[in-house]
C-alpha cells in the first residue's frame, strides 16, 4: 500500500482538480469523496491536501472563497479556473499516455 500511496501522491493535484471539475467543494468533502471512490483504501493527509491547495492557488488553477454557513464553522470553498480546467485535461492526457506505456513495460 505504501508504494501505491507514493504513486498516487504524485497525482494529488490532478485528483483535486478532477473533483472540482464537477462542482465547487471544500477540504473535507474532497477527502471524503476520495475515500468513498476508493472504498476506504485511500485517504489524503490534511497536510498533503492543504499544501496541494496552496500550490494550485499559486499556479492560478483554483480560487478560494469563504462560505456563509449559518451554523458551525465557516468553510473555505475552492473553485476551478479555466487554466485549472486546461491543466486537468493536460494532466489526464499525460496520465493516459504513461499508463499505456507502463502497461506495455510491466
Amino acid at each position, binding site marked *: 500500500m505504501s508504494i501505491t500511496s507514493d504513486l498516487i501522491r504524485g497525482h494529488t493535484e490532478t485528483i483535486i482538480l478532477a473533483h472540482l471539475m464537477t462542482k465547487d467543494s471544500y477540504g473535507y468533502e474532497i477527502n471524503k469523496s476520495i475515500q468513498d471512490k476508493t472504498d476506504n483504501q485511500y485517504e489524503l493527509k490534511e497536510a498533503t491536501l492543504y499544501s496541494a491547495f*496552496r500550490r494550485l492557488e499559486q499556479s492560478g488553477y483554483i480560487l478560494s472563497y469563504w462560505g456563509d454557513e449559518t451554523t458551525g*464553522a465557516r468553510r*473555505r470553498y475552492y473553485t476551478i479556473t479555466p487554466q485549472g480546467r486546461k491543466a486537468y485535461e493536460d494532466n489526464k492526457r499525460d496520465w493516459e499516455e504513461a499508463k499505456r506505456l507502463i502497461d506495455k513495460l510491466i
Partner: protein
Amino acid sequence: MDDKLRDRVEALFEEAPQTKKASELKEELISNLTEKYNDLVANGRTSEEAYNSVIAGIGDIDELIRGLKHSSPFDQEKELISRKKTALVVSASVGLYIFSVIVLIVCTELLRLDDILSIVLFLFTITIPTCLLIYHFMAQPSYKKEEDTLVEEFKEWNQNSKYKKELYQSINSIMWTLVTVIYLLVSFIFGIWAFSWIIFIIGAVLQQIIHLIFSLSNRKE
C-alpha cells in the same frame, strides 16, 4: 471535544508566523477536522477513537507551515523586472522634462514664435512625463510587505492612504495645468478671450467631481 481539537491545531501552528494567511489556514483546518470528527462519531466511533483518528490523519504539517514562511523565488524575479521598469520610466521622464525646456528655447529664440504659443507648447510637453510618472506609480503597489504579518498589513494600509492623498493632489495639478493650456490655446487661436475664461469654472466643477470620486472610493474600503 471541539475545544480539544482546536487546542491541538493551535499547538501545531505555534511555530507559524502570525499572519492572515496562517489564521485562515488554521480556521479552514479546524472547520474541516471538526466535520470529520462529527462524522466519525455519528458512524458509531467513541469520541476517543474519533479524536485519535482525526489527529493521525493530519500528517506532517511542517511542510504547510514552511509554505507560509517563505515567499517563492518567483517574487524576487518579478521585483527585479519592476525595478528596471521604474528606472526606465523615471529616466525617460527626466529626459522629457529637459526636452521641454529645449522646446521653449527653440520656440522663442529660433522659431520666433509668439510668447503665449511657446508657453503653451512648453506646458504641453511637461504634461507627458508627468502623466507617465503618475501612471507608472499608480499601476504598481507602493509598499512591499517584508513579512506577511498584521503589523506589515497595517503599514501597507497606512502607506496606501497617504499615497491616495498624493495621487489626488497630482491629478489636480495636472488638471489645472491642462486647463491653463487649453485656455491659452483656444483663446489665442480663436481670439475668444471674452468667453474662454469659462473654462476655469468648468475646471472647478471637475475638481469637485474628482474629490467626490476619491471620497466615495475611500468609503467603499
